[in-house]
């Protein structure tokens, strides 16, 4: 049965009929309708059910406060759950009722177009396109402001000139210093607006209040003003035999509007009469319990409330941030005075609904109070009132008033519970916008990356970098590939793309003195042309990073950092230089990406370098370990450093990044007859673990001192200060039972992170003595190996410890962390 009137409806265009589907049936509406108005026009009064009690429900409001009529939209866009009162009708719309709970969509149902994010700056942002909002926007525009006006409805009547007007746009949250996030959604576009405004005007209006009486949730019960809205904007008369229950004059005005459209007003009920008795004889019961200013956004920014006896509700106290103001009916202006009537007295309150979307009644509130709760916030959490999609728009003030009444504390004792963003649900995909997949985080690739890809390398993420983990040949899995790569380094030569190492250029007359303060060993005495390995500690004395310093000149160093810590180290340098030692003349520049780094390691490394063609004297006496030389390799200007992270003879060739690939290919070509093998990060990890070289951040966790690692030699013993020095004397740093780095020879491969125990009692918990930090199959030693941080570990070499694991217990012998070439002769042969 059609409830569309023959005339009227200021928002609809009767010349433009639209077809839509609801709950599997096809219906018609007009352009300008909301889904709710179109459903009412088609006579659908009870198309919904309640989430917990399965009671029939109908459209109760005409706005965002709707607690009943929720739908999933599947065409022409996807929305998991939205109020039908806020859905603009479009041709081909497909909607299905949802009982207050959305459904997680399959990936294929998701919007295929990313929500765009827009950032704008304005002098004035007005939230709400009603009379007060339009006036505020027009006045600001007249003063020359850039003005934006947003409104969640799909239509803004008589929009002011000179103002950016965004209908269909919901302000989700107001944040510090005039930052507002708003969501714009239509059938054809979705945008998230980030607005920074000098001044934010909340013209968010007011909404009619509900009253708790028996059966107040039944289909056909509607807010009085909503019925008037359906008549005036959409030409829809929601009922013919109508009763009105009101605490204020506005209810009578709404009833007049309904009567003028041909309805019979059969009962007019005021405070003192029970409206539930009137339900049976009518098809529409209008309710007006007064008006509440919409203050969700105001309160989310810390704005307070004050009780108004005239309105029998809360108004803003206007004590908020200076850039935020509330105008119009949101401020209480022009609202009708109302009797304070929340609750129809009864013996049984189990059908006096307070929060329809949570199916919670006055009886539920009474039960929470009986349990001893007195705070509105606690009642909210006990009953979930106000926690549903509508966020308590209809129930918040009502629930607080009922708590006050049942406790006998007076109507202004406690206001409604707190509100926070977002004001309406928003999908994570919208928040992410285009920042997902490959755009989630920058992807960094080295200059040599194309070669790795061509060779079918398997990559791993190291920070933002893509690094080759291994280079499988002929369908190899990881283990055989890594074993082959490791053996190549130990027996012939391997080459690693080390370009991702952080590199910082440190220049200035005080560079040496500065680095002395930042590192545990002395850098200022390093001769030009030499290299020194160093630790950087935190102020707490714990290892923060390691790397090498190359002295390029009296006032010029090149520092390397671990791949993942490059930004942290540079930030730390800047922090100390700017905040503590501004007098030091030192300048730091990140040069990580300016240099490519081709690291050749293995007994044939020198032969390969010679074969590539180097104009540098490679004889050990002329070019010893821990020095560097500038020259040319394969005709390319380079800086060659003799450092070793594998224990083997090694040359790291630093080259202008733009020529990195060219140099790499020259090295591979010249090295091929000598058996050169490209290796990845996994082999690098195994090779360094065989030598007991730690990786900061893997074998350390921010609680490890140099001495814990058995590396006291790296800490200088003279009088001069460096960051973290004093902390090495703290009682905790000197504890005898500290965890210390050890090697492990386990029965079988240990999982990294496994906790070790002295004795496997079979009963949990067992005292844990430390974690396995690194664990690999060593091809060189032909057995599994591990590094671990074990209590008093250094004095326990030769003892057996156990790792109880779900699949059985693995035992391991504690040994020195240096498992291969303990004399350290191979890097220097």
């Amino acid at each position, binding site marked *: 049965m059609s409830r569309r009137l023959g005339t009227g409806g200021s928002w609809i265009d009767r010349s433009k009929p639209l077809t839509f589907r609801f709950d599997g049936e096809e219906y018609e509406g007009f352009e300008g309708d909301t889904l709710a108005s179109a459903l009412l026009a088609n006579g659908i009064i009870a198309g919904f059910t309640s989430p917990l009690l399965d009671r029939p429900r109908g459209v109760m409001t005409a706005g965002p406060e709707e607690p009943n009529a929720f739908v999933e939209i599947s065409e022409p866009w996807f929305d998991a759950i939205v109020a039908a009162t806020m859905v603009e009708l479009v041709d081909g719309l497909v909607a299905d009722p949802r009982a207050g709970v959305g459904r997680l969509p399959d990936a294929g149902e998701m919007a295929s177009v990313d929500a765009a994010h827009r950032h704008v700056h304005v002098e004035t942002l007005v939230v709400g396109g009603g009379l007060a909002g339009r006036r505020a926007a027009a006045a600001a525009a007249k003063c020359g402001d850039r003005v934006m006006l947003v409104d969640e409805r799909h239509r803004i009547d008589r929009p002011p000139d000179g103002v950016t007007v965004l209908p269909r746009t919901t302000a989700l949250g107001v944040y510090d*210093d005039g930052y507002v996030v708003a969501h714009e959604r239509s059938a054809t576009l979705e945008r998230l607006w980030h607005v920074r405004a000098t001044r934010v005007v909340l013209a968010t209006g007011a909404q009619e209040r509900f009253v708790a009486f028996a059966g107040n949730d039944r289909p056909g019960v509607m807010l009085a003003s909503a019925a008037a809205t359906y008549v005036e904007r959409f030409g829809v008369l929601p009922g013919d035999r109508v009763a009105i229950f009101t605490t204020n004059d506005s209810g009578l005005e709404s009833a007049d509007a309904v009567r003028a459209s041909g309805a019979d007003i059969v009962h007019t009920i005021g405070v003192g009469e029970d409206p539930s008795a009137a339900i049976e004889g009518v098809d529409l019961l209008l309710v007006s319990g007064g008006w509440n200013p919409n203050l969700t956004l105001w309160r989310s920014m810390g704005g307070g409330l004050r009780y108004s006896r005239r309105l029998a509700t809360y108004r803003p106290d206007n004590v908020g941030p200076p850039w935020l103001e509330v105008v119009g009916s949101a401020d209480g202006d022009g609202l009708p005075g109302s009797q304070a009537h929340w609750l129809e007295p009864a013996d049984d309150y189990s059908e006096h609904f307070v929060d329809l979307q949570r199916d919670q009644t006055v009886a539920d509130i009474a039960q929470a109070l009986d349990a001893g709760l007195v705070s509105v916030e606690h009642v909210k959490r006990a009953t979930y009132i106000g926690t549903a999609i509508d966020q308590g728009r209809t129930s918040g003030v009502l629930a607080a008033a009922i708590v006050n009444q049942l406790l006998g504390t007076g109507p202004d004792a406690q206001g409604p519970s707190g509100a926070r963003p977002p004001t309406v649900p928003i999908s994570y995909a919208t928040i992410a916008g285009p920042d997902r997949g490959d755009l989630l985080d920058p992807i960094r690739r080295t200059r040599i990356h194309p070669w790795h890809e061509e060779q079918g390398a398997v990559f791993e993420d190291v920070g933002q970098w893509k690094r080759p983990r291994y280079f499988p040949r002929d369908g190899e899995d990881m283990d055989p590939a890594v074993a082959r790569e490791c053996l190549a380094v130990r027996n012939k030569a391997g080459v690693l793309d080390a370009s991702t190492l952080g590199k910082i250029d440190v220049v200035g007359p005080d560079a040496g003195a500065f680095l002395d303060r930042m590192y545990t060993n002395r850098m200022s005495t390093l001769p030009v042309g030499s290299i020194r390995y160093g630790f950087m500690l935190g102020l707490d004395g714990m290892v923060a990073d390691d790397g090498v310093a190359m002295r390029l000149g009296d006032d010029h160093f090149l520092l390397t950092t671990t791949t993942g810590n490059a930004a942290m180290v540079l930030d730390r340098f800047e*922090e100390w230089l*700017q905040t503590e030692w501004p007098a030091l003349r030192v300048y730091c520049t990140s040069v990580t990406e300016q240099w490519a780094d081709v690291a050749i390691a293995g007994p044939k490394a020198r032969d390969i370098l010679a074969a590539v063609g180097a104009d540098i004297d490679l004889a050990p006496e002329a070019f010893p370990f821990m020095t560097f030389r500038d020259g040319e390799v394969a005709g390319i200007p380079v800086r060659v450093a003799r450092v070793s992270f594998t224990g083997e003879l090694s040359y790291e060739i630093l080259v202008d990044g733009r020529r990195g690939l060219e140099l790499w290919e020259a090295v591979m070509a010249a090295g091929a007859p000598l058996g050169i093998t490209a290796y990845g990060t996994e082999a690098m990890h195994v090779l360094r673990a065989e030598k007991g070289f730690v990786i900061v951040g893997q074998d350390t966790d921010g609680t490890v001192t140099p001495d814990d690692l058995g590396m006291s030699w790296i800490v200088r013993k003279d009088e001069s200060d460096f960051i973290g020095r*004093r902390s090495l004397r*703290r009682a905790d740093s000197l504890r005898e039972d500290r965890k210390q780095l050890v090697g492990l020879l386990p029965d079988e491969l240990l999982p990294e992170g496994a906790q070790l125990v002295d004795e496997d009692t079979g009963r949990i918990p067992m005292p844990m003595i430390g974690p396995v930090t690194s664990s690999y199959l060593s091809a060189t030693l032909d057995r599994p190996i591990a590094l671990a941080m074990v209590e008093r570990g250094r004095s326990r070499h030769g003892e057996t410890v156990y790792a109880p694991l779900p699949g059985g217990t693995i035992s391991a012998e504690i040994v020195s962390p240096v498992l291969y070439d303990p004399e350290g002769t191979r890097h220097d042969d």
Partner: protein
Amino acid sequence: MLLIRCPWCGPRDEVEFRYGGQAHIAYPGDPEALSDEEWANFLFMRDNPLGPFRERWYHVHGCRRWFNAVRDTSTHRFVGTYRMDEEPPA
């Protein structure tokens, strides 16, 4: 999101900055001369007032300069920002 006035760049969004904790805690001239307790106080103990607080900020995604600010912790309002070599605003 706070709007923070970098002394070099002007007002910028909070996401461009990194917080640096309480300001005006000088690194001790001679850490070795301090007792364990004095050193621990320097390392770990910070004020946590309700009201104006002098704190450090780093414009990490901007000019990469450190600066100081006075911010009211109860309202998030910045009384002012100032360079490392300047006196705090009254």
